[in-house]
C-alpha cells in the first residue's frame, strides 16, 4: 500500500525538516519525534455492558492485552491500546493488518471500527518535558499523579489532544492533523528556552 501512487505525506514535513535548536543554556533538553506510517483505529461498542464485554473478548486475542482502567494504555512493541472510555479504545499500530483484522472480527451489530487517518503521533521526551508541557496543559504531570501508562483527553493550544505518558520523561501526543502545524509551531516555541531536537520515526517500511 505504501508503494501506491497515492503516497502518504506528513502534515509536518516542512517543519520537521528544519531541525532542532539550542536552548538558552546551550543545551537541547527536549526531543520531539513525529511517528510516521502508524495506523490508528477507534473501537467502540454500542452502549450495553454485554456488548462491551463481547467486544473485549473478540479484540483480546488480536491485541494481546487490553487496558483494564479507563484513562490508561498498554504498550507493546507493535501495538499501543488506549482506553478512552468504558467501551471506547484506540489502537495505534505499525501493522495495518491488525486494524483490518479488527474490522473483520467485530460484528457491525456489536460496535464500530473507524480508521483514524487524521491523527498524528508526536512524542516529546527529555528531562525538561514537564516544563514544556506545563506551558500548555493544565494537568498535574508529576509522576506520582500521572503515572506511566496513564492518558488524558485534554487540550493543547486550543486543540483537543490525547496525552499518554509512556515513560518517566516521555509523553505521546495524539493530535488532529488539521491542527498539527499550529501545535508543532507552539511546541517548538515553548521548547525554545529549553532547547530541542526533532526526529522522525518512520513505520512505513
Amino acid at each position: 500500500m505504501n508503494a501506491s501512487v497515492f503516497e502518504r505525506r506528513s502534515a509536518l514535513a516542512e517543519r520537521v525538516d528544519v531541525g532542532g535548536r539550542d536552548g538558552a543554556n546551550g543545551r537541547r533538553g527536549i526531543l520531539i519525534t513525529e511517528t510516521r506510517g502508524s495506523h490508528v483505529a477507534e473501537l467502540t461498542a454500542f452502549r450495553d455492558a454485554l456488548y462491551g464485554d463481547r467486544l473485549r473478548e473478540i479484540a483480546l486475542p488480536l491485541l494481546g492485552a487490553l487496558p483494564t482502567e479507563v484513562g490508561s494504555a498498554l504498550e507493546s512493541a507493535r501495538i499501543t491500546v488506549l482506553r478512552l472510555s468504558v467501551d471506547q479504545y484506540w489502537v495505534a499500530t505499525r501493522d495495518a493488518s491488525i486494524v483490518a483484522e479488527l474490522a473483520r472480527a467485530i460484528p457491525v451489530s456489536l460496535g464500530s471500527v473507524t480508521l483514524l487517518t487524521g491523527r498524528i503521533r508526536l512524542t516529546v521526551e527529555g528531562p525538561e518535558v514537564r516544563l514544556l508541557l506545563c506551558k500548555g496543559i493544565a494537568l498535574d504531570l508529576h509522576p506520582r499523579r500521572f503515572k506511566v501508562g496513564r492518558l488524558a483527553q485534554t487540550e493543547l493550544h486550543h486543540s483537543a489532544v490525547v496525552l499518554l505518558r509512556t515513560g518517566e520523561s516521555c509523553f505521546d501526543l495524539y493530535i488532529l492533523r488539521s491542527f498539527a502545524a499550529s501545535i508543532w509551531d507552539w511546541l517548538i516555541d515553548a521548547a525554545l528556552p529549553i532547547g530541542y531536537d526533532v526526529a522522525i520515526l518512520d513505520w512505513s517500511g
Partner: protein
Amino acid sequence: MSRSPRRLATGGRIDRARPINFSLEGRALQGFAGDTLASALLANGVTLVGRSFKYHRPRGFMSAGVEEPNGLFTLGAAGRTTPNVAGTVTDLYEGLSAVRQNGWPSVDWDLMAVTSWAAPLLAAGFYYKTFMGPRRNSWMFYERFIRRAAGLGRAVHLPDPDRYETQHLFADVLVVGSGPAGLAAAWAAAQAGAHVMLVEQDRELGGSLLSARLDSPEERWRAEMLSALRRMPHVDIRCRMTAIGLYDGNTVALVERHQGRPDPARGEAREIVVTLEAGAIIFATGAFERPLVFGGNDVPGVMLTSAARSYLNRHAVVLGRRVVVATNNDAAWQSAADLSTAGAIVTILDQRQTVNRRCLELANDASVTVKLDATPTRAIGSRAVTAVRFSTSRASREHSLDCDLLCMSGGWAPVVHLTSHTGIKPRYRADIDAYVPGEYAAGHFGAGAMTGTFALSAGIREGERAGRRAAEHAGYVSEATRAQCALPAGEDAACEVGPARLAPPAARGKAFIDFQNDVTTRDIAVAYQEGFTSVEHLKRYTTLGMGTDQGKTSNVNAIHAMAGYRGLDPQTTGTTTFRPPYTPVSIGALAGRHVGQHFRAIRRSPLHQWHVANGAMFIEAGLWQRAWYYGWAGDSASAAYINEMKLVRGAVGICDVSTLGKIDVQGPDAAEFLDRVYVNSFARLPVGKARYGVMLNDNATVLDDGTTARFADTHYFMTTTTAQAAEVASRLEFLLQTAWVDLKVSITLVTDEWAGMSIAGPKAREALQLALPGHDWSNERLPYMGCVDIDVDGVPLRILRVSFSGELAFELYIAADRGCALWEHLLTRAATLGIRPYGLEALAALRIEKGHVAGLELDHRTTLDDLGLGKMAASNKTFVGCALRERPELRAPGRWSLVGLECLESGGTLRGGAILFAPGDEVAGHGRGYITSVTWSPQLGKYIALGLYQGGLVHEGEDVVCAYPLKQEHVRARIVAPAFVDPRGERLRV
C-alpha cells in the same frame, strides 16, 4: 561608588565585587549586585525620585517594598518602555535605564509644581464640580488637559518585543511568603512529606529577616532554615514570584519575573504567569508598616522606619546622620537601635506615655535618645526634611528637632489581600489596631504577621502549626510532623502597638494619607461632609486606594479617619474590596504567548502545502485557512473568482472541500437515528445513494444541512457545513447519550480523517475517466446522488456524486495523508482537459448562482419554510424540532423568507447586508429584509443575491430598493426565484 557618603564600607547583602552600571535620565550611575534601583539611587544621593500625582510635590522613597507609593519610574526604552515601576522592587541590572515621572520639564525643576499654590481649590472631587459647564459635554474638553497635568508614567504604542509565558503548576502545599513564618511553614509541611512550593516575591528568601543585621541571631536562624529546606526533597523554592490572586479551587495566580534583561531570541521570558493549584495554601504574607499622618509627612527624607532599617542592614545605605524615629509601637525601637549602632544620632519619639522595659534597654544600649508621649505634628523642609515639630500632652507648645531623616511607624497592617480575594472580609483587632483575615476557606491557613502575630518566635511556631495542618489537609500525616524547628537565640517579645493619632485637617501643612493619589486628611473631611461616608464611596470620591500601590500604606489610616468622623469603630466601618492583582502585572504577561501566530490555533487542510506552493491566496473560515483564489486565475479575488467560475461552468475545476464536517455514523440503529435527526427520511435511503438533509434545533430553527450517504445498512457518512461540524457532532453525541440511550449507534467526527476534493464542470466525468481509469463513471453506474467506495492501487477512495456548484460534479474522499497525492494525480492526469483549482470565493459564487443556502442563510434564526425547504419535512415520522415548527409565529405568512435578487441597474452593485425596502417605503430602520449572500454572476452579467424578504416569493417579480447606509447607496433590484442557473437541475444529472 564606595566613596558615596551614604554607602557603608562593609555590611549589607550587596556584592561589592560586582559593580553594576545603570542610568537615571541619562546620568551614569553605579550600584552593586544585590541593590534595588531604590537602594542604588539612595546610595548615589538621589532622594528626589518623583513628583506627586496632583500637587507635583517633591517625593522621596517611602518604603523598601511593593507598597511604595512615590518612587515610580519609567524603565527601558522604545517597545520595552514600562511606566510606573516601583524602584523599591526593581533589582538592579547592568544597563538599566530609569526615568523619574510626572515632572515638567523635569522632576528636579517641575514648573507644574505651581498647582500646589492652588491646592486649596483642588480638594477631592474638585474637577467633577468645577469643570461641568458651561455645556453638557464640557468635561470632555477639560479632561484631556487635566489628564495631562496629573498622572504617572506614559505607556508607548510600540509592540513589546519581550517574551511572556504561561505555566500550569501544582503542589500539595503552597506557601506564600518566606518570612520566618513562611520558612517554618514550608519546613513543617515538607517534614510531613508534602510536596511544597515556597514562593517569594523578593529575590531572596527571608522576608523581614532580610532587614536584620548579618551578625544577628535572626540571620543565623534564616541561614540554617534555608539550608534545611534546600536539603529536603520535594521543596520547590521560587523567588521573584508574586502571588497576585486567589481563586476558587485553591487556585493561585502568580507572576514570576526574570532577573535582569531577558533575551527573547533565546526564549527567555520577561515574566511568566503561573496558574498554580494546591492541595492547601499557607499565607505567610507578612505586614506593611503604616505611616504616621502629620503635616509634611511626604517630604523627601520622611520614610517608613522598616524601610530605613532595610536600606541600612540589607543594602548598607545609611540615609541620615541625625535621625528621628516617630512611632507608636515596639518594632521601631529595633530600627532606631540599628541606625544608632551604624553611627547616626537617633532620637525616638513614641506617642505612648509608657513603653516596656525591653524597648528602653534597647535604646539605652544603643545610645538612642528617648522622648515618650511625643507626637510628630509637622515635618519641616521642601526637597529634604530638615527638622520635625512634635507635641506632647503635657505642653501646649510644639518642640522641634533638627534631622535629615525622619522615620515613621504607625503600626502594622497585615497583608490580607489574598485571603480577601475570594470575598472573605477582614476582621478588625483592636489589640493590634489592625485588620486580620476574617476567616479561612477550607485548606487555607495563615501564619505570622499576616495573622497579627508580630513576635518572631510566636510567628515561627504559628508557621510550623500551619505547615503541619496544611500537610494534613493535603493528606500527609506522619510522626515527623511533631518535630519542631529551633528558634532564634535571644529574647523575644510581642510587639506592642499604641493607637496612632491622626493630624487634624486644620493642622498646618498637608498631612497625607494616600501618598500616591495626593489624598490628605482634609480630603477625607470633605468626603465626609459631602456624604461620601462609606469606605467604598470614600474611595471613589477621593481616588484613595487606587493606583499602582492600591492603598497598601493608606487604606487603614483612611478607614481610621473616616471611622473617627462617623463615630464608629473600624470593624463597623469595614474595608474596601480587595481584588486581584495584588501588585501590578504587565499586559504582556497576561497575554503570554498568545500573540502573533500563537494567538490561536489555525486549521490547515491536508492540501494546504500544495495550495501554498501553487499560488493560492488564503482566507480565514472559522479556524480554517482556506484557499480563497489562485494566482492562475487573476491577481485579485474579484478578477480571479470570475475566471475560476467560468472554468467550472465551461470545462472542469477542482476544489478542496476537506474542511467540510464529516461524521461517521455506524450501528444497527443508524437509520432510525438519522430519521430522528433529519427532517427528511434516511431510513429508506438505499445503500449506494446519498441525500441532502436538514436538521433543526429544538426550537425548530435550522441547525445545519449537508449530504449524507449510505454505504451499508448500518453505515452512513454524513457531511456538514464547515462551520457547524463540531456543533453538530456534539449535538448528536448529546442526543445519543441523553435522549436516545436505547439506540445502538456510534458517531465519530472524522473531519480530519478524510481529504475531500470536488471535481466540477461539464468535463468532470472525463477527468475522472482519465485519472481513475478502470472504473465505470457513467450516469448509469454512478447517477446523481449516488455514492460508491472504490479501491485504487490498494487505497480506498470514497466517491459521492453530489454538486454544490450546479454542474456535473463528484466529491472524492481519501485518507487525509494521501490527499495531496490524489489531488496532484487528478490535476496531472486530467491536464489535457484544462482542469485547474478553484477557491472558496468561486465556490461561494457558484452556489449563489445555483441558489443553494449556506452558512449566511443558516444563521439559527431561519426555519425550513423560511428557506423554501418546508416540503422536505416528512409527515410520517417525528424529528427534532417537528413539534415546535408548527408554532404560529413560525408559520406566519409575513416571515422573512428566502428570495433571489437580480440587480436592475447597469453598473449598480448589490452588497451583502444591504437592507431591503419596497419602492415607496421610507428608507429607514430594519426594512423588509436584507441581502444574505451576493456575487457578480458571469452567467447573467449582473449582480445577483440571495436574501430574506418579508413574505418571500409571494413578491416574486416585484422591485425592491437595496439600501446600504454605510455607503449611502440605494440600488434597485428585482425579486426572483433563488435559482439563477439551471433551475431544473439538468446539468448536474448529465
